[in-house]
Structures are given as structure tokens and as C-alpha cells.
């Protein structure tokens, strides 16, 4: 019955996940029908005799372990209480501290969960405007970076261990005028750092401060300054924009307020019965992005075509190439003047930024969907953002002392500047850095940098709101923060960082309640006032000539490791990239058609080269075919191919910076590509855990969202599918308790993978490494599947997060010989690790492929210092044990215990699973479906609601809301 309806309302759309699948290649067929892809390493090249030998040996060992194991007594342990217990600390109960995560100088509020003063997990701070309680992948992963064993631990002077005091003698010897002293730092908005810099400039009149970010929004700000005549910062109002047009700008994953903007965007996109309105998004881009996947109409363009597009949009014309898309966009923009927003990639040239600003101005969007505040960055006479002028100063011998505070400019500076050569001409060079990286090698002094979770500081958010960074743990090593070092440069060697911050804020405003601000994480009343009455200078006309060559190149920051800054983080390394599902590697991305014309296949290594000056620069990397990529162009991601600093990042990917120059930060007009005669295997999880082409991602019309009926069995009148699976939960038991359920909205899921990282941090999920991923042994409890629909060249793209479905009639439980997986009364499909003997029958019988097996002792490979990150409320699993999503049962139990102690029912929304709490767009909702007033019960009744593979009769507790398409 249900299925008949579905065929009436939904066109049958063929969704696919990889090119092999679409073409149904022999390799794909072969891979699909291998019953145990995870056994790849054992089943290849082993004959019967070897097998028997191994079996014999393992039986013998098993016998020995059983005998010995039974005789093992629990080892003696010590209890070590405090001498003086801190008043507010109760051992076993977590404490949350408000702090701030800083990315590219801008702050996002966080709450740090600590267990006995050991930070274990990051949540968003609901009071902070850039977070609103949500997080992004970097925030989630930052807690692991704190415990990175490869971090710099001591001051080094030319490779020899030294001390801070010895380094301070260098600072004491600085010339009083500051002549020849230069500071190179990363972007900052920290009010106290800016204040210290101003004081430094006052004390050392000839000192100069530069800042450098490899991926910078400088072009946007320069264009705004040229247009308005003053330094401004932008605020985009996605909550007001009904039509959004993006020219290569992935505002969902990389804008300065990505978490907040994703929330605002998704809030306008949520389709519910009775509220069908939603915003419209049009994206033109080269490499598919999160924004592109959400777009109504996505246009593939070469990187050189943005000028022409913007000029046409400005004029309101749609002649020539891409006329259909342009016509649509122009028409929609005209119809929504004043409530539309046009964006372009931040590295695109200033002229183009100006054109886009002009478009917004003519549409009347300025002051409505695009607002301006005074710049959150330091004044340009205080901090110069021009690395080129620093390099020319260095080359001309004007720099005697260079203090590099953070970053790795030797690795990431534009290739034409030859930063490394310039560095050799500087007298004394010191580098404050968390790792001993490429820049540290060429410096005289290497100074360990504190992690954000162990230092005092402050930062402004995109709207100017200042928030405090407070340490949640004492520095693990002899490290200092940028703030402390700036104070030391100014001659203040002894004031603790706490005093530096509190003094600054007390002098700034006597009314600041320090304790309150610290507690809340946000300093009230620091938000900048909106600029009004801004006058745009006359527009000089759009620059529209496109000069692209035969093969263009585009640079993008990596969606997980950014410009290389987060490359040391194993969680981020192993996170499948949203658009390719590849981890541990970057690729040379090309469209299938371009690849065919160049005779390239997946994993063929190619050499990309271009002349910079007189030198031929070359890089080598594996090709990967990306459906939806523009033709005649290739994309490479930055941040890979590190050679020093961390055991995690060394050897993964290739470095693309050698091709990037100051004038070509975003694109190279013409690039030479040569196919080399070798291959490089990449780990892509795209085809792992395939559900064999059943109706997985549902696409519905807006009409259906209003008039249709829920397809969740048992909700909205939908019938239960007949099933032979047993009932584990008698109705009389189920009625007595909560029925936990989860709903995932495919309309607002942007595919950012924050949920996967949050799950990894919360549930002690180990990293397995590239080779294990290639054998489909990744351990993530929730995965985000990526589906394509339509042609191989220009497909539509959808994301679908898949945690355990917590089936009411679970096929896995039926086949477990030891009852290691069974049902709880509140509907959780429980997994008891200590009963599991590792038959993996459950995983084979799971239609959703959400169970993960510890083929090796992955948790043993967690490095000692990283063990401090482990969540004490979740068991660490060992080898031979099956595991899977538990709906964060530890969170359920802790809330339940508190509720039972107070003798009250659990409130709706009181339990937040890790994925739900982290999700920037609130696409995931968890609750008790037994309570008809709960959010989850209502969501299951929505017309868009459906359950995955409901025809199997598994009655999943996890349900989805179908994606609405126009």
C-alpha cells in the first residue's frame, strides 16, 4: 500500500554513489558481491594448508588464552584522593567551562567538557552568536590536538634544547627603537592582543607587524575598503535572504561564521507541514562544495568564468554561455531585490569582489541581507597583511630580528615569494609554533605554542562580540601563547596571562563583570554596532574578460585540515571528505569527461607543472574523477604533503603550494598536466557499506510535503510492513517507558560531517589508518553517505547521515549466538561488548551496514597522551568486538539518573546525543516518540517522514525527512 503511493508521488530517480556504480562496471559487480570485503587481506593468496596452519595456531592460542584468562585476577589499583579537594569538583561528574575556539582569528564559543580537569569533548556555546550551541569539525577535533604527542615540548635553539629565559635574553637585547624587528603573526581579532600590539608599536616605534594567512579573506575586505573608504567587516543575513547566489563561495563550510550561517541558512530551508516556504540557492562553482550540493540549480564553471558570470548578473543579461542558469538567477534576483544575497569566493580578485558588491548594492541588499560593522581585525597601520612587502624587506637586509608567531609560512607562503630564501637573510629568527615544522627548521629559535585549551585569551566573533578563552588544563609542556609572547616582547616577562586579559578588560570597561563573562563565555555588550549611511564609491565597471587556458587549476583549502593547520589531527585526517569520501590523501580532481579526454583514470599519478618566473614548478598527485566537477579544469586541495612536524601528517597527500603564487591564490589560468606511469591507491569509503540501489534517499516535491502522508510505519496511519522478525519488546513493556527515536532531516543536512567527529570524540572511536580504511574497516559509528543523481557529468548531490537505526525488530539480534546484542525496554538495540565473541553474524545480517568490527586492537594504537581524551563514560573496545551507535546511551543514562533522583519524567530535548548537539543545522532531533507532544513524535508524522528500507519490516527508530526538490 505504502509503496504504491510512493510510486505515484515520487518520480523514480536513480541515485548512485560512485562512477563504477553508475556504469555498473565489472569491478563494481565484483566488489559488490564479495561477501566479506573486510577480509581482503586474509583471503588473498592464502592456500588451504596455510589456512589450516593458521587455524591450528590460533586454536592453540585461544586455548591458552582461555585457560590463562580464567586465572587472571583483577590487578591491584590505587585510589588517590585529593589532599585538598577543590570545592566545586565532584570526581566522576563532568564540569563544563565556557571558552572560545579561534579559527583564522575569529572566535566561536565553546563549552569544554572536563573530567577531573581533563578536557574530553567540545560542545558549542549556546550564548555565543557564532555558535548558537553548535560546532564544526575543527572545534570537535581540537580537543585531540591538545594531546598530540608530536607537539613541541621545549624551547629549542638551533635544534638544541634551551629555555624560555635564554630566549628572553634575545628579546631583552632588542634595539630600543625596534629597528629591524618584525613580527609575523596569523590573523587576530583578539582585543587584548591588538592592545598589546599597539603598546608595542608605541614602545618600539620602528617595529612592524605583519600578518599572513594562506587562505585569507583579505580580498573581500580590501574591496570593501576601496568601495566604502573604511575598514569594515561583513555580516550576511541568511535569515533574511530568500534567494542566495554564490559564485564559488562555499559559505556553509568555510565562511568566517560557518556554524552560524549554516544555522541561519537551514532555518530558512526547513520544510514542515504548514510551512512550505524555503529559500532558493543557486551556485556556480568548479569543484562541488557543500553549498553546491544544497543548491536548487548548480552550474559547473571553470575558475576563469566567474568574471563573465558576475558581469552578466550585474547587467541582468543572460547571453552566451550558461544562459539558462543566468536567466533563472537574474529573474529570481530581480523578483527578490532587497531580500537576496550574492556571494563570491573570498580569494577571487578584488575587482570581482567589487562587482559582486555592486550587484548587491543595486539589488538593495546592503543594509538588509548584507550588513557592515567596523572591522573586527586590527587597523591596517598596526598590522600589515602584505607578506610580499615583508619578504622584500627581508631580502633587502632590513630585518634583523623576525618573530614568527604561529603558522608555517615556509610551507604555505605563495611560491613566488620564496619565503625560505628570504628567511636566510634575516639575522635572528624565532618561531612560536605547536609543531616543529618547515618554518621551525629554518629558524634559530623554536618556541612551543600553547593550545587554545591551555591558555588565556580573547577573540571577537564575526559580529564583533568578544568572548574569553580560558584554560581548562595547565599547559602540558613548556609552552606559551601568542598573547604571553607579545607581552614578553614588550618587556613584560612575568605577568601571568590571566592578569594580562583581566587587566585589559577592566581598563576597557569598568562595568564588565569578569566572573559573569568568564562563566558565560561571552562578554556582554561587545557586539559592534551596525554601520549605517555607508556610501558606495562610484563603480568603474565590471572586469569581464576571461583568460582561461586549455586546462585551468583551482586551489581550495581542505575541508578537514584547512591550509595544513589541522593536518596533525588523526580524526580529521581519517574523516572522509564530503564530496569524494576520500581520507588520508588529497587528489587531483577532474571531471569524468576531462579525464577521458586526457586518458586518465582514478589513482593515475599525474604531474602538474607551471612556470613561476623562470623556474618550472611541479607537483605530483593521484587523479580522482569527481562527478560534478567543471570541464577543462582540475582542483587540488591545500594543506597536504607535510614533511615535518607530526607523524600523522607526514606522508599523507601531496603539497600543492609550490604551484600557488601571490597573484594566483585561487586559480591558475593554464597548467601543464602529464600522466606518469604509476598509480597511487587512495582510501575512499564511498562504495563501502552499499545498500544496493534501494530507495534510500527519498526526494519529494513541495506539494507532497504539505499533502502527503508519513511513511514511517506506525506513524501518520502508515501500516506496519509484515515481517517474520520477532518482536523483542512486548507492547506492555514498551508502554511503561520512553521510546527513544531519532529523526534526520535531509533538507537541512549539509553534509559537513561534524556529527561524525562529535561521535568519534564522545564514543572513544579509534582511528584505523589508511590501509585499514582501504579494507573497509573504518570504525565511525555514524557515516554520512553521499549520493549522486542524474548524469555522470553534472549530477545532483545528496547527503544522508546513517547511524544505527535501532530497529524495533532488529535482524542483528536474531542471529547473535551469545545474545551480545539484544533489546532494552526503551528500544535501544544494545551491544554488550563483553559477551561478543566476534562472529560478525550481526553485521552480515544488518541491512543498514552500521555495525563496526574491531579487526585489530585499534584502541591499542592510541598514543599514550591521546588516551587522556577518552570519555570515561564509554567503554574502550578491544580487538574482536562488534560495536555500533548506541544513541549515546551514556548521555541517556546520566540524564535519566538525574531525572529519577528528582522523581520527574525526562523532558523533551533534555537528552542530546553527541551528533544532535554538534549539528550546525539541527538536522538531527532525538527524543521520546512515545510522548505525542515531543518534537520527535511530531516529526515522525510529517508527510516527508520515512524510514530506511521499511519494506524489510525492521521498524527503525531512526527515521528521515525526505529531501524536497523543486
Amino acid at each position: 500500500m505504502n509503496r504504491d503511493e510512493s510510486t505515484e508521488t515520487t518520480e523514480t530517480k536513480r541515485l548512485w554513489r560512485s562512477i563504477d556504480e553508475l556504469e555498473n562496471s565489472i569491478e563494481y559487480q565484483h566488489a559488490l558481491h564479495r561477501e566479506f570485503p573486510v577480509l581482503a587481506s586474509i583471503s588473498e593468496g592464502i592456500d588451504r594448508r596455510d589456512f589450516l596452519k593458521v587455524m591450528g595456531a590460533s586454536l592453540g592460542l585461544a586455548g591458552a588464552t582461555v585457560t590463562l584468562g580464567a586465572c587472571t585476577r583483577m590487578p591491584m589499583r590505587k585510589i588517590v584522593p585529593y589532599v585538598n579537594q577543590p570545592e566545586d569538583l565532584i570526581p566522576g561528574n563532568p564540569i563544563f567551562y565556557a571558552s572560545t575556539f579561534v579559527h583564522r582569528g575569529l572566535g566561536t564559543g565553546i563549552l569544554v567538557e572536563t573530567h577531573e580537569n581533563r578536557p574530553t569533548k567540545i560542545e558549542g556555546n549556546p550564548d555565543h552568536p557564532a555558535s548558537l550551541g553548535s560546532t564544526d569539525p575543527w572545534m570537535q577535533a581540537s580537543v585531540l590536538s591538545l594531546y598530540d604527542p608530536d607537539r613541541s615540548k621545549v624551547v629549542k635553539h638551533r635544534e638544541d634544547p634551551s629555555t624560555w629565559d635564554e630566549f628572553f635574553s634575545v628579546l631583552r637585547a632588542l634595539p630600543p627603537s625596534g629597528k629591524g624587528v618584525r613580527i609575523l603573526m596569523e590573523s587576530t581579532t583578539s582585543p587584548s592582543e591588538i592592545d598589546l600590539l599597539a603598546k608595542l608599536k608605541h614602545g618600539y616605534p620602528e617595529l612592524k607587524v605583519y600578518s599572513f594567512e594562506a587562505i585569507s579573506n583579505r580580498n573581500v575586505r580590501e574591496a570593501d575598503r576601496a568601495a566604502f573608504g573604511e575598514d569594515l567587516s561583513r555580516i550576511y543575513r541568511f535569515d533574511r535572504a530568500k534567494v542566495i547566489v554564490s559564485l564559488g563561495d562555499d559559505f556553509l563550510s568555510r565562511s568566517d561564521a560557518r556554524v552560524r550561517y549554516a544555522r541561519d541558512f537551514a532555518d530558512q530551508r526547513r520544510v514542515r507541514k504548514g510551512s512550505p516556504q524555503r529559500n532558493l540557492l543557486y551556485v556556480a562553482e568548479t569543484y562541488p562544495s557543500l553549498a553546491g550540493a544544497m543548491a536548487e540549480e548548480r552550474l559547473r564553471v571553470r575558475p576563469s568564468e566567474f568574471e563573465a558570470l558576475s558581469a552578466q548578473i550585474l547587467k541582468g543579461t543572460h547571453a552566451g554561455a550558461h544562459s539558462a542558469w543566468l536567466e533563472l538567477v537574474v529573474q529570481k534576483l530581480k523578483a527578490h531585490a532587497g531580500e537576496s544575497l550574492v556571494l563570491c569566493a573570498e580569494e577571487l580578485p578584488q575587482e570581482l569582489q567589487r562587482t559582486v558588491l555592486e550587484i548587491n548594492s543595486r539589488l538593495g541588499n546592503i543594509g538588509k541581507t548584507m550588513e557592515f560593522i567596523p572591522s573586527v581585525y586590527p587597523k591596517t597601520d598596526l598590522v600589515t597583511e602584505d607578506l610580499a612587502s615583508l619578504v622584500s624587506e627581508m631580502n633587502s637586509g632590513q630585518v634583523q630580528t623576525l618573530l614568527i608567531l604561529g603558522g608555517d609560512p615556509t610551507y604555505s607562503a605563495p611560491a613566488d615569494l620564496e619565503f625560505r630564501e628570504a628567511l636566510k637573510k634575516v639575522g635572528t629568527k624565532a618561531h612560536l609554533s605547536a609543531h616543529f615544522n618547515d618554518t621551525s627548521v629554518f629558524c634559530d629559535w623554536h618556541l612551543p605554542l600553547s593550545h587554545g585549551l591551555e591558555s588565556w585569551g580573547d577573540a571577537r566573533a564575526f559580529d564583533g562580540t568578544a568572548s574569553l578563552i580560558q584554560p581548562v588544563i595547565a599547559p602540558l609542556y613548556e609552552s606559551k601563547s601568542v598573547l604571553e609572547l607579545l607581552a614578553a616582547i614588550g618587556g613584560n616577562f612575568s605577568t601571568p596571562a590571566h592578569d594580562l586579559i583581566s587587566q585589559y578588560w577592566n581598563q576597557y570597561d569598568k562595568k564588565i563583570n569578569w566572573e559573569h563573562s568568564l562563566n558565560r563565555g561571552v562578554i556582554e555588550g561587545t557586539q559592534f554596532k551596525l554601520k549605517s549611511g555607508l556610501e558606495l564609491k562610484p563603480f568603474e565597471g565590471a572586469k569581464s574578460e576571461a583568460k582561461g587556458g586549455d586546462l585551468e587549476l583551482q586551489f581550495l583549502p581542505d575541508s578537514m585540515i584547512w591550509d595544513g593547520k589541522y593536518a596533525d589531527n588523526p580524526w580529521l585526517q581519517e574523516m572522509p571528505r564530503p564530496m569524494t569520501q576520500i581520507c588520508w590523501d588529497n587528489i587531483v580532481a577532474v571531471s569524468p569527461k576531462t579525464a577521458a579526454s586526457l586518458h586518465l583514470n582514478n589513482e593515475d599519478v599525474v604531474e602538474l607543472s607551471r612556470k613561476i618566473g623562470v623556474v618550472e614548478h611541479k607537483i605530483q598527485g593521484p587523479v580522482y574523477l569527481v562527478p560534478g566537477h567543471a570541464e577543462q579544469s582540475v582542483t587540488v586541495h591545500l594543506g597536504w604533503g607535510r614533511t615535518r612536524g607530526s607523524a600523522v601528517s607526514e606522508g599523507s597527500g601531496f603539497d600543492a603550494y609550490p604551484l600557488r603564487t601571490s597573484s594566483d591564490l585561487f586559480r591558475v589560468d593554464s597548467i601543464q598536466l602529464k600522466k606518469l606511469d604509476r598509480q597511487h591507491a587512495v582510501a575512499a569509503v564511498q562504495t563501502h557499506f552499499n545498500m544496493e540501489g534501494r530507495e534510500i534517499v527519498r526526494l519529494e516535491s513541495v506539494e507532497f510535503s504539505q499533502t502527503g502522508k508519513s511513511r514511517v510505519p506506525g506513524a501518520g496511519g502508515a501500516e506496519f510492513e509484515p515481517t517474520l522478525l520477532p518482536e523483542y519488546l512486548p507492547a506492555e513493556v514498551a508502554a511503561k517507558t520512553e521510546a527513544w527515536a531519532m529523526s534526520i532531516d535531509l533538507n537541512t543536512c549539509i553534509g559537513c560531517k561534524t556529527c561524525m567527529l562529535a561521535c568519534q570524540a564522545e564514543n572513544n572511536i579509534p582511528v584505523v589508518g589508511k590501509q585499514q580504511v582501504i579494507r573497509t574497516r573504518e570504525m565511525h559509528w555514524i557515516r554520512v553517505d553521499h549520493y549522486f543523481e542524474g548524469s555522470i557529468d553534472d549530477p545532483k548531490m545528496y547527503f544522508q547521515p546513517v547511524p544505527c537505526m535501532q530497529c524495533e525488530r532488529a535482524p542483528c539480534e536474531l542471529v547473535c549466538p551469545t545474545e551480545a546484542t539484544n533489546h532494552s525496554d526503551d528500544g535501544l538495540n544494545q551491544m554488550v561488548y563483553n559477551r561478543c565473541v566476534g562472529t560478525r553474524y550481526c553485521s552480515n545480517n544488518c541491512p543498514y551496514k552500521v555495525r563496526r568490527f574491531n579487526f585489530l586492537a585499534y584502541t591499542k594504537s592510541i598514543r599514550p597522551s591521546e588516551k587522556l581524551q577518552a570519555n570515561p563514560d564509554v567503554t574502550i573496545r578491544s580487538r574482536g568486538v562488534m560495536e555500533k551507535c548506541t544513541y549515546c546511551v551514556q548521555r541517556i543514562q546520566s540524564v535519566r539518573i538525574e531525572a529519577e533522583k528528582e522523581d520527574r519524567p525526562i523532558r523533551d530535548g533534555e537528552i542530546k546525543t553527541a551528533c544532535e548537539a554538534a549539528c550546525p543545522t539541527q538536522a538531527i532531533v532525538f527524543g521520546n516518540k512515545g510522548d505525542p507532544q515531543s518534537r520527535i513524535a511530531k516529526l515522525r508524522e510529517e508527510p516527508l517522514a520515512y524510514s530506511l528500507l521499511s519494506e524489510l519490516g525492521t521498524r527503525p527508530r531512526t527515521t528521515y525527512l525526505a529531501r524536497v526538490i523543486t
Partner: protein
Amino acid sequence: MGQLFKPRHNSIARVSIVASVLGVLLIGAVAWTIRESPYNSAKGIALSQPIPFSHQHHAKELGIDCRYCHTSVEKAAYAGMPPTHTCMSCHSQIWTNAKLLKPVRDSYRDDVPIHWNQVYRLPDYVYFNHSIHVQKGVGCTSCHTGIDQMALTSKSRTFWMKDCLECHRHPEKYLRPKDQVFSLTWPSENTGLLLEEGKKRITEYNIPMHRLTNCMTCHR
């Protein structure tokens, strides 16, 4: 060639059959005895401690409430071990020169914690929460039976899963009036009339019987 087996071999065969069966049983019995013995469970074995702290003296004879030292028993999963400061709140006044208490004074002076040997240890995959048990009317001495009789602390139960399940299956045996939770004199197990009252308390205290034996109640 004569007969290989003489008639007496019949007896040998019979004896060896019986002996092998008995042997297997004996091995089983020995293994079981070892498993159940204090050697394995450490039940009833007092560990050596840096200070021979007596619960008998402090809790029973002096009548100090459990919560004076185990402060977080109503708030957290762990009952909490007293910081040295708690010991010194009395012992800075009395027995100030006692030789036995030198480690306490040293700890306080040098700011070095006392390292106690752990008596009650649950496996890492068991998540026992003191606060909910105390709140639901399970008394201290229901698990820590006879703690008030112990000059040196030892386990009075094995603290194995069967001990947990015994109560999670039959909570009526252990539910007390809520004002008697910290009583040392209330019987550790309800019998007779008390058992009938215990049964009533299951509904009175909203004990979720259906949930008590879910795996994930204790294992996460």
C-alpha cells in the same frame, strides 16, 4: 600367543572409567573452589593500607555519618574518597602525635595524596552509580555489609555481576525507608515483615523493574 588381557584387567578398566569421571569432576570442583575462593574474589581479605583506617571505630563507635567522608555519594557515581583535609579536620585536634597517623600528617604537610589500595573494584565496563542507589532507598550496608564491624576494610561480597543481578532482580530485599539508607543498624537484607514493606516500596519509589536488567543499565 596368550591372552593379552587377564580377568583383573576388567577391574582396572572399571576403576579407571570411574576414576576418570571422578577426576574430571574433581578438576571442575577444584577450579570452581578456586574461582569462588577469596583467593580469586578477594572477598573478606583486608588489604594492607598506608594507614590502618578502621570503619568500625569511626562509623560504629564514634557514629560518624558515612557522608562526612564519602561526600559525593548522593551526587555522583562515585561515593568519593575523603581528601586528606577531611582527616585533618579532626586529627589536627586529637591524636595529633599518633604514630599511626604520621602518613596523614605527612600528606597534608607535603601536599602529597595518600595512596590507598582499592578494595572495591568494578571492571571498567561496569558503570555503577552510587547516587541513584542511595536515592532509591538502597542502604550502604546492603552492599558494604558489615562495614561497621571491620577494623580493616575488606569486601563482604564478591562484587560480581551475580551480586548486582541479585538485587536488580529482587530489589524488595534491599529497599529501605529513605531515612534509613545511611543506617548501620538496619538489616542488610529485608526478611519477613520487612520484605513485605520492601515490596510496597517498589511502587512507592518508582523502581523501574522492567529496566533493571537491561544490559545498558550498567554497561555502556
